Each structure stands twice: as structure tokens, then as C-alpha cells.
């Protein structure tokens, strides 16, 4: 019996090893022999860019914060001093920092609570068309201009806006007024209260919480939940002891986005909210109209330090153990 393949083999034997064909083949051979080389070549340019531009500007920023401004001339004095840092810790500036951090924490918490069911549904139940719809729904807000969205929200939340109108329509004006009458977070209208700022932040950053959460939940095998139930756990027990810990890296990743994006934003609190300033606004004004670049630099260092502390705590809590 001789198959066509066997005949071909018996005829002109094909060569066993092929000679390299041009420079491409030689390069391929080199990369096979040294797998690290290709990775290094791919990663070097962006790494270089990061090191010079990003870390470089960061260092410059840090350096600036150790200069000070001359109160009379308004000129930056390039002598090393801690005067600017002392100014950063004045009660008025500490107030700004505290306000910003509290807002960032509230936004993060709200986003986590709101995002979890959505991410859970998308990861566990949505298939095919529903999944596409989920991605579309989550991403769509990211495709329109950020400014347009924020102004739209101002209109929605304004005293004469949609929320007021809708509340009247369903006879919930009393509820809305009660909410606005709340101390601190309430105000004249939603668009001039902390509550309004929080709502807009929440809306704008929510996708950044949902997507990593969904990715993390997707990686939790369905059998984990079944194993918990099999061993007698209720839904709530399974959620707390199995799903949440396994999804925690995703929650932390999402919270890093929402927290740091809120810490640095200077547009939303400008358009929606009270007249009290946030870190981003302070930096914007200090380096612009006020011309106090050293203090602006010191302010800009604050979110970085806060994020480093935050990551440390997250790590201590074991957020990255399941990675």
C-alpha cells in the first residue's frame, strides 16, 4: 500500500533543515535563540519615554515645591526652602485637601456599590447580544465630550432642571427638598451642592469602576460559587467569603481609577457644586492667575502621596493576594 504522501517521500526527499531566507529569517532565528531580546526591544522605547517625560516632570514638580514665591515681587525664588510646604498645611489649604479626599472616597464607595451588580450581571449572566449591549452601555458615555456631559448634568440638576421637574411630576418634591435640606451635602439646588458634585463624579467615573470589576468577576470560576453553596453557604455568605475576596483586585483597580481621577479633577467641581475649592481647582488657579507655581506643585504632590498610601493599605489588606 502506498499513499500519495508515501510516494512523495520515496521520490525526491525534501531537505530536513532549510537555509535562512533573507534578513527576516535571520532576525527570527535570533529572537528564537534570545527570547528576552524581542521583549526588550518592544518595551524599551515606551519605557524610555516614561522615564524621561513622566518621571522627569514629576521630579521637576517635586523640585518646584521646594522653591517659594516672593510675596512682594510675585517672583519664584529658586532657593531651597520648606516655606511652601508649611503654607500647604495651613488650615485653609488642609481644608481643600480634606474636602477633596472625602469627595474621592465618597465617589469611590458609591461607584463600587453601584458598579458591583452591573459588573456581576455582565460577568455571570450576560451572553452574546446582552454582553455587547453591556459594553456599549458602559462605554457609550466615554465617547462623548466630557465637558458636554458635565454641562448636561448641570442642566439636569439645576433648580429649574429636569430633576426638579420630574420630582414635581411624580409628587416627590418633598423628598427632593428634604434631601436638599440635609446639612453640608445639601444646598440651594442639586447643581450647587456637594451632592450634585458627587452625582456627576459618580456618573463620569463609573465606567472605570465597572470594567475592571467585570474583568475580575469574569475570572472567578462559576464552580467557586457552586462549591460555596454545596458546602452550605447562603448567597450572602458566598458573596462575602468567596466572590468579594476573589473580585477584590478588580474592585481595588477600579477604586484606584475613581479615587485618583476624582482627586485630580478641576472641572466638575467648577461647574457643578458649591464655591468651595478642590485640589485640582487650587492647582489650576495657583499656577495660572495667582502665579504661585511652588504652591501649585506642592498641591499636585498631595494626590500622588495619597495614592501611594492608599495602595500600601490595599496591599496590606491582601487586595493583590489573589492576583
Amino acid at each position: 500500500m502506498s499513499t500519495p504522501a508515501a510516494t512523495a517521500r520515496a521520490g525526491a526527499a525534501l531537505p530536513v533543515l532549510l537555509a535562512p531566507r533573507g534578513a527576516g529569517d535571520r532576525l527570527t532565528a535570533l529572537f528564537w535563540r534570545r527570547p528576552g531580546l524581542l521583549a526588550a526591544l518592544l518595551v524599551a522605547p515606551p519605557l524610555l519615554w516614561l522615564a524621561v517625560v513622566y518621571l522627569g516632570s514629576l521630579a521637576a514638580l517635586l523640585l518646584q515645591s521646594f522653591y517659594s514665591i516672593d510675596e512682594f515681587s510675585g517672583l519664584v525664588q529658586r532657593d531651597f526652602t520648606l516655606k511652601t510646604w508649611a503654607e500647604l498645611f495651613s488650615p485653609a489649604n488642609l481644608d481643600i485637601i480634606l474636602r477633596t479626599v472625602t469627595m474621592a472616597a465618597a465617589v469611590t464607595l458609591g461607584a463600587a456599590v453601584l458598579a458591583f451588580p452591573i459588573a456581576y450581571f455582565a460577568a455571570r449572566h450576560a451572553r452574546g447580544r446582552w454582553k455587547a449591549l453591556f459594553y456599549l452601555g458602559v462605554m457609550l458615555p466615554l465617547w462623548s465630550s466630557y465637558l458636554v456631559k458635565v454641562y448636561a448634568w448641570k442642566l439636569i440638576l439645576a433648580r429649574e432642571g429636569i430633576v426638579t421637574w420630574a420630582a414635581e411630576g411624580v409628587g416627590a418634591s418633598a423628598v427632593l427638598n428634604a434631601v436638599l435640606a440635609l446639612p453640608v451635602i445639601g444646598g440651594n439646588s442639586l447643581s450647587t451642592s456637594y451632592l450634585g458634585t458627587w452625582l456627576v463624579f459618580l456618573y463620569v467615573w463609573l465606567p472605570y469602576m465597572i470594567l475592571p470589576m467585570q474583568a475580575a468577576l469574569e475570572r472567578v470560576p462559576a464552580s467557586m460559587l457552586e462549591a460555596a453553596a454545596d458546602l452550605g453557604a447562603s448567597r450572602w455568605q458566598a458573596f462575602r467569603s468567596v466572590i468579594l475576596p476573589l473580585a477584590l483586585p478588580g474592585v481595588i483597580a477600579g477604586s484606584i481609577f475613581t479615587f485618583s481621577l476624582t482627586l485630580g479633577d478641576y472641572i466638575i467641581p467648577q461647574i457643578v457644586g458649591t464655591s468651595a475649592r478642590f485640589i485640582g481647582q487650587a492647582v489650576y488657579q495657583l499656577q495660572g492667575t495667582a502665579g504661585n507655581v511652588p504652591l501649585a506643585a506642592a498641591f499636585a504632590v498631595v494626590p500622588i502621596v495619597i495614592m501611594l498610601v492608599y495602595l500600601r493599605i490595599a496591599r496590606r489588606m491582601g487586595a493583590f493576594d489573589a492576583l
Partner: protein
Amino acid sequence: MTLAVEFENVSRHFGAVRAVDGVDMAIPEGAFFAMLGPSGSGKTTCLRLISGFETPTAGTIRIFGQDAGRVPPNRRNVNTVFQDYALFPHMTVQQNVEYGLMVKGIDRRTRARRAGEMLGLVQLDGFGPRRPGELSGGQRQRVALARALVNEPRVLLLDEPLGALDLKLREAMQDELKALQHRLGITFVFVTHDQGEALSMADRVAVFSAGRLVQVGSPAEVYDRPRTRFVADFVGSSNVLPPALAARLGGPAQWASLRPEAVRIVAPGAGRIDGRVVALRFLGAGTRVAVAVAGPAGAPPVVAFAPAGQPPPAEGSPVGLHWADAALHLMEGE
């Protein structure tokens, strides 16, 4: 005899897919019960019906006499060893084993003591502080076993428990599981597509095909007297004879099976039929000898088993085949 699990005309359909279709089945207490069948035959779905992860679309499931149809998994005193083990990666081995006791609110000290005992039972003393990720496949399997057994389940379910282990480990675990079941007296129900595993471990075997239960019996019954052609084919290593060949070999024109061990190789003309050796396969304990017999076109060769010690005939040589009357077993053609 108490019945641990009873299926009464149970079906589970997924749309048009009849994963389980009208199954009647009784699993006696203390049995080591195997559900055997090819992939997609509905074994896992049956197991999930017992554990409560699936609800029947029709029929009744009773566990120790009680209707369990609508009872959720966490309210059944039945535990599962999952195919992929499903150990919690963020917990230590100790915490994994304690989990079932923890969710039931058992105090810390009792929990630790019982988990320790269980780890001892599966020969994993001292592995408590490790993470599942640091264990080998066989060790994970034992942790999964301990995690299920610590709850003292009335029925233990195992889905392809040895599927992920290599051959040597699998054989060791087969013996160990068997010994464990014997010692604890708990009803074990396990799913496998490996007939060797089912026959060697179980005391009762249920053979599934396309969502239906085809035959239940002791391993010897299923092996010696397959009810249908499907069972004979799947349980394997037997001669499955089409009606024309069965008639040629002296039986009625009906599907039949003939075990190779029952076929003796004799001198040409001295047996019931003559033929020519077409293939030999050495199996250690003996040699499988395939003999082409003159007969209907396209009929498979008849396989005989020549035990070691008796030199097998050479390939191509003419031989005669002989067997006792009772060895030819008739069955349904499905």
C-alpha cells in the same frame, strides 16, 4: 434496604437538549455507585440534580425518602467533589476544609479540630497552612475530598474525580477512594467516562446514553451481560457481533456479545469455526488475538484472549475458535 437517592422518571431538558430524559434510578445507602457514559450523555446533569444545582423539568428526586426537587444546594446534606476541585484560592488548605463548618456557625476550636482530623484522614497532615496553589493535583484532590467529607454528608458526589490525575496517581487514588468509602460507609456517587474506573471501583454501575439510563447492575453484570449493543460497545473489550455474524457463529440472527476470555484458540477444524489470525496485541497478562472468520462481508474479526504461558499463534496462521454455549450473550440492537 434504605435508598439514598431515588429518581422517578426524572427529566432535565435545556430547550431542545434532553440532557436527562425519563431516568428511573435507585441508589442504595452505602453504595459506591458509578454513573458511566460517553461525554454529553447526561451524567454530570444527573449529579447536579442530586446536589441541587439543577432542578428537574419533570419527575421526582428523593434523597433518603424526602422529596428534594425544590430544596436549594445549601440546604442538602450532600457534598460534591468538583471536577476542577473548585478549591478557594484565597484561603489556606485549613480554611478550605473548615469552610462548610464555618458557614454553619460551628465554633472555631471544633472547626479546627475536625478539619485537622479530616486532613489526617486524607493523609495531608501538616498541609493546613498552605495555599491550594502550592499543591500538586493529587493533593488538591485530597483537600477537595476532605472539604466535602468534613460536613459528614449523607451522600458524597464526585464528578470525574480522577480525570485530572496522571495514570499512576489515578490508580493509587482509586484504591484509596474505595478504602475510604468502605471505612466511612457513606454513599458515594461518582461520574466517569472511563469504564475501567467504573468497573473496578463501583459496586453498582449505571450506564448512560444520550440522557437515558440504559442499564444498571453490578460491574460483573454490566460487563458479562450487557443489555444493549451500546453498553457492550462502551464497556468495551468484548466482541460485539452483528446479527449476521452471530448467526454464522451458531446463534440466532440477533446482536450478541462474546467475551474474548471465553474464546479458546484450538487447532483448525477442532472448534466451532475456523479463521485466520489478522492481528496480535500483547497485553502483559496475555495476548489479544484477532481472527478473521469467513462470513458476512464487512463483519469484524472475532477477538480471542490467549493467556500468558500459552504461546499465541503467529499472524496469518489458520486457527479454530471454540466457546461454551452460554458464552454467546444476546442483546438489544440499540
